[in-house]
């Protein structure tokens, strides 16, 4: 077996490589958003791209989320392939009207005459003490909307590969990048490229329980699974990757083997993506279950600033370990 050539990189660099590749491969692609140009991106994702591609294709925008997201929709209708960066999911609420009432809806309202090949990227998630207006996980809200595809890259491969696939989609795609992942380091294949954006993936195989998660919580689940393995419990960890449309088959097949399911979701519990998955398991795999589905979600509180309170509000490894032990009868 030959050694595959890899490079050491970060999640941030992987996203940048993806944007850069898209700009090189397709002249219709351009990036716009707040501080993407001269500042280099508020998370430094687009640093250097302005110098390489110029201000026509790396467009700094005014602080006008609704207008520049709407302009992205219009540009997509006009034959371009815009990548619109919104600083954080909380700010995206200023553009929610455009995303929901236009991007997700125009194809239907026009009876299929128009489609909107737009990609919106935004940061999401807590863990950096950014408090209650910068740190929520609202992916589940967007996953509620027919007409959108919602992606949640957790790995370097997906950070590198999902963007190109999203740009090939004829319809609007939102990519959520968890802000705690930008510094994630690891090896990425030198020839890493487009990945599928349809299916969930088993990130760790196991036989005793299925843990379903996405985004940064994946690493908490993998840490929990490693700790559990030392106690003889083999947890299977599934990374959803795509939150809309959900790939039911992957987690249902896993549950058919493990007969237990735990969902770990950084969103609030009520009306969450975890609630949706739980309902689907009940609808489609009720008789496979040995015990009821369990969920670990964020506490139902706006994100607090103080570190100990923020940690308490989020799903954590200890809680995952304890819940799994209880579920497999080792508690």
């Amino acid at each position, binding site marked *: 077996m030959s050694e595959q050539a890899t490079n050491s990189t970060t999640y941030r660099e992987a996203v940048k490589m993806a944007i850069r590749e898209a700009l090189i491969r397709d002249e219709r692609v351009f990036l716009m958003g707040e501080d993407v140009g001269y500042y280099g991106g508020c998370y430094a994702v687009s640093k250097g791209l302005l110098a390489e591609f110029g201000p026509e294709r790396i467009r700094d925008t005014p602080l006008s989320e609704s*207008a520049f997201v*709407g302009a992205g929709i219009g540009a997509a209708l006009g034959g*371009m392939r815009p990548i619109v960066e919104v600083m954080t999911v909380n700010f995206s609420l200023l553009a929610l*009207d455009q995303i929901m009432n*236009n991007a997700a809806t125009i194809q239907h309202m026009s*009876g299929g005459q128009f*489609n909107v090949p737009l990609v919106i990227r935004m940061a999401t998630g807590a863990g950096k003490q950014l408090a209650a207006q910068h740190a929520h996980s609202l992916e589940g809200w967007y996953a509620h909307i027919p007409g959108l595809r919602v992606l949640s890259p957790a790995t370097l491969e997906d950070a590198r590969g999902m963007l190109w696939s999203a740009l090939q989609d*004829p319809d609007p795609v939102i990519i959520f990048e968890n802000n705690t992942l930008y510094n994630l380091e690891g090896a990425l294949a030198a020839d890493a490229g487009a990945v599928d954006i349809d299916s969930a993936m088993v990130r760790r195989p196991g036989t005793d329980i299925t843990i379903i998660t996405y985004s940064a919580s994946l690493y908490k689940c993998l840490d929990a699974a490693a700790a559990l393995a030392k106690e003889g419990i083999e947890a299977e960890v599934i990374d959803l990757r795509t939150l809309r449309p959900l790939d039911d088959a992957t987690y249902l097949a896993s549950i058919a083997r493990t007969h237990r399911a735990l969902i770990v979701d950084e969103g609030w519990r009520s009306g969450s993506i975890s609630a949706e998955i739980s309902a689907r398991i009940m609808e489609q795999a009720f008789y496979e279950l040995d015990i009821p589905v369990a969920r670990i979600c964020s506490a139902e509180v706006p994100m607090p600033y103080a570190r100990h309170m923020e940690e308490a509000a989020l799903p954590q490894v200890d809680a995952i370990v304890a819940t799994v032990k209880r579920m497999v009868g080792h508690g």
Partner: protein
Amino acid sequence: MTTQIDREHGMAQLRMMLLIRRFEEKSAELYSAAKIRGFLHLYIGEEAVAVAVMAALTPEDAVVATYREHGQALARGMSADSIMAEMYGKQEGCSRGRGGSMHIFDAATRFYGGNAIVGGGIPLAVGLALADKMRGQNRVTCCFFGDGAVAEGDFHESMNLASLWKLPVLFLCENNLYAMGTAIRYTQASLDIAAKGAAYGMASAAVDGMDVMAVEEAARIATAHLRHGNGPYLLECRTYRFRPHSMFDAELYRTREEVEEWKKRDPIDLLIRRLREVGLFSDQEMSSLEQSVTAEVEASVAFAEAGSWEPVEDLTRFVCSERSGV
């Protein structure tokens, strides 16, 4: 008014205004007969604006309109058949019956809706113009909106963005003095909408929206400015809606006298008077024009009546594209 009246053009403008008027009168009748449902917003009284502005656009230009858009759609060249069938909810309608009165779309004439979120179409127009500019196409995007939309953030954000990037957007404000049922004096600190252009470094003008020839002249000045790459343009057309806001409006917010006063400046009557003054128009011509317009409207009703319902099995179509990679 110095514009030379071109008989053929004047007659075409008159016919289109009359078509919009009769089409909408018939629509109101069909609403009462429960053939058309949902919301129905009539343009009656404002016809001169759409008809004049469309004359200043080319087929390559794009149009973004509001939920009061039957007039724009007809003047842009869409068939009365496809619009009437849409309002019936039939699959022969322009949007297959998925949109209704508020969501008229047409790829063939680059008509991008039919947007029923007040101000929501304005950023789209900026984006369409951005695409044209980046692709090196000398085209204009004309965005219709009302005085109500001027209070929305999308209006101000889009004015700034379009001016900042020098995009060929014609911001076309139809100021009919009421945001649904609230008079502009209760919603705007300054009643001069055209003056807002200056705040964004944008050329602007205001024009009598009841005078089709004046609007056309103003629109041609605006589109010439746009086509020369001078950046966006704000044109305020001062007009008036003769009918209620929608079919549910009891019109408690304005007096009958006010409406009657405005009707004295009916844009159709104004043009007829002008054509008569210069001897370009006879009673006989008027009656044949009425006959031809009525026939077109009746034909659209027959087309809609004869149309078919989309199969319910198709319910979830047009959510995700059926075409593959683009």
